[in-house]
């Protein structure tokens, strides 16, 4: 079995799925000849040709809107938004259309499409290249949101996303792209959308994270007896796994890099406060990015949740 990083794992998933299903097409800026700015689509143009790996003009709304049309027509487009920070121009297409065609037509027309986007901070890139705005898309009925935390999850989840009958936003944490290598099987395996993974079992505190924060949390909390949940799907999220763990530990920390206010941590905390209140022995804490735009390189270390903040929060929880 090959040891791959996340770029390679996503590339493998795309290649295999395109071989298996000729309805799968790729569209995006620089995804063809260039193989994508992170090289995620490298080699696919050569293998599948221009009809299936389509370099587009520079227009995010059009990339998503065209994918909607392709999917209405019965194809399964996988589009790349070069960085999540450029998806906002496609917000209308995603929310007013991709999310609603099924409902609007009572199932007659559907949008089985995937939007892949590199996201997250910590790569010292220019403005808008390090956004973590996943929460917006979790407030969109009709859309699913998936965030792998490593190469193995990336491949299995991407296959599920492409096969999903509904639109899926698939967020790839850029900081992890080449940071982690894992064994990634060739061929068929899927990881179901909507299921979280208990990344480490533990008893004293439940820590919930996703994407690049998972790696931070795992490292930072080695000395603790913490149950660490890798959420994997944010929408619809796996409340069963979350609530089960909270009932066991009675203490919860949520870690995300997006700004705190109205980040996805808010929904997790609210769900816990609504459905597991009686199990709680301590406040539900969030370690999150502050309510500021992601800063440029020289301030970014103050922005991203780090081991010190994560440990401090867990220690605080354990004092209850």
């Amino acid at each position, binding site marked *: 079995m090959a040891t791959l990083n996340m770029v390679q794992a996503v590339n493998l998933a795309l290649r295999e799925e395109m071989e298996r299903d000729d309805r799968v097409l790729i569209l995006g800026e620089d995804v063809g000849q260039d193989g994508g700015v992170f090289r995620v689509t490298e080699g696919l143009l050569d293998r599948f040709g221009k009809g299936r790996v389509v370099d587009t003009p520079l227009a995010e709304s059009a990339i998503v809107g065209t994918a909607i049309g392709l999917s209405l027509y019965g194809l399964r487009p996988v589009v790349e938004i070069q960085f999540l920070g450029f998806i906002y121009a496609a917000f*209308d297409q995603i929310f007013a259309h991709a999310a609603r065609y099924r409902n*609007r037509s009572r199932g007659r027309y559907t949008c089985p499409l995937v939007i892949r986007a590199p996201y997250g901070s910590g790569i010292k890139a220019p403005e808008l290249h390090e956004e973590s705005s996943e929460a917006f898309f979790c407030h969109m009925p009709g859309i699913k949101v998936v965030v792998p935390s490593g190469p193995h999850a990336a491949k299995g989840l991407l296959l599920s996303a492409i096969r999903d009958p509904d639109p899926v936003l698939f967020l790839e944490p850029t900081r992890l792209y080449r940071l982690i290598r894992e064994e990634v099987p060739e061929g068929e395996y899927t990881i179901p959308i909507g299921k979280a993974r208990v990344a480490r079992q533990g008893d004293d505190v439940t820590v919930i994270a996703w994407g690049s924060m998972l790696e931070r949390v795992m490292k930072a909390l080695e000395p603790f007896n913490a149950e660490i949940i890798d959420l994997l799907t944010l929408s619809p999220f796996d409340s069963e796994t979350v609530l089960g763990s909270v009932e066991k530990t009675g203490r919860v920390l949520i870690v995300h890099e997006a700004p705190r206010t109205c980040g996805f941590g808010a929904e997790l905390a609210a769900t816990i406060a609504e459905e597991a209140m009686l199990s709680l022995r301590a406040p539900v804490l969030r370690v999150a990015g502050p309510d500021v735009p992601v800063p440029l390189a020289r301030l970014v270390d103050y922005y991203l949740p780090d081991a010190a903040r994560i440990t401090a929060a867990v220690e605080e929880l354990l004092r209850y």
Partner: protein
Amino acid sequence: MPTTILETFSVSRLDILNPEGDCDEELLPPLSKEEIVRLYELLVLSRAFDERALSLQREGRIGTYPSIRGQEAAQVGSAYALQPADWIFPSFRETGVHLTMGYPLASLFQYWAGDERGLVCPEGLNILPVSVSVGTHLLHAVGAAMGARYRNESIVMAAYFGDGATSKGDFHEAFNFAGVYRLPVVFICQNNQWAISVPRGRQTAAQTLAQKALAYGFDGIQVDGNDVFAVYRATRDAVDRARGGGGPTFIECFTYRMSHHTTSDDADRYRSREEVEEWKSKDPILRLERFMEKRGLAGEAARREIGQRTRTAIDEAVRAAERMPPPERRDLYRSVYAECTPRLAQAMEGGGNGDA
């Protein structure tokens, strides 16, 4: 400044049938008598449907409704040039297109009464749900066209929109993609001179809308949108070109919105009655009637019969629509995803801490 001229362009206009019912024989498209009478019947049906919808709205039996009065030729003429297998991406003011393609009348009434089920297009037709968000659906036509091309299916996409839609960014992006990939799309703009209260001249400083196609490397043409022959001919040519691999075309149907923007609007606040009066004389149905009279097609008796048939169809459709059982509470949840999320399933069962 003396400089090199790199390119020259022009934008033209097609007129065939004038308001008096006279036509340019050379330009007249090859339509049989039956087809011409059929066009007439569709125009009449469109107007009658519209009138009924307006009165149902006044009676509170349907909700807000956008009249198509004055635009019947633009809608019927263009849709008549399409094949049943072609896909249509309408905005919200294309009732005449629906009717021409054979969309169930009852479904249309049902939809305007606030019931999503009216948008379920019958098998065998592909008219997408109306796009309320102006101009945003043009991209879907482009994507579907890319799909047809990829699958080697000779299906053409027709995207309908208004003059106001030409200002939206998605209009631009859709035209640009269609041009770059030379896709089989026909962009059909009903320039009815108004976007609610904003007149065409303040929507863009371009002399015509048709010329906007020049920015994308394909052709645009203006046609008399109240002339069903001109609209039909321009659309048929564009559809043929698209089907033959010749890429997209932009058709500006120069027409007029004779009524208020919708039943919630009061057009007297912003436009003159004289302008409306002037356009009355350009009525698309009247001129076809005159044409038929001159040619001895569909005399009074035939026309009466058409009127009768139309009314019967509409009456039945209204009855059918109003007989349909109302949607159920569970319909609220059912179609958001292929399979309900746990939270939706819980809500559907009435659970979830006070969820509906």
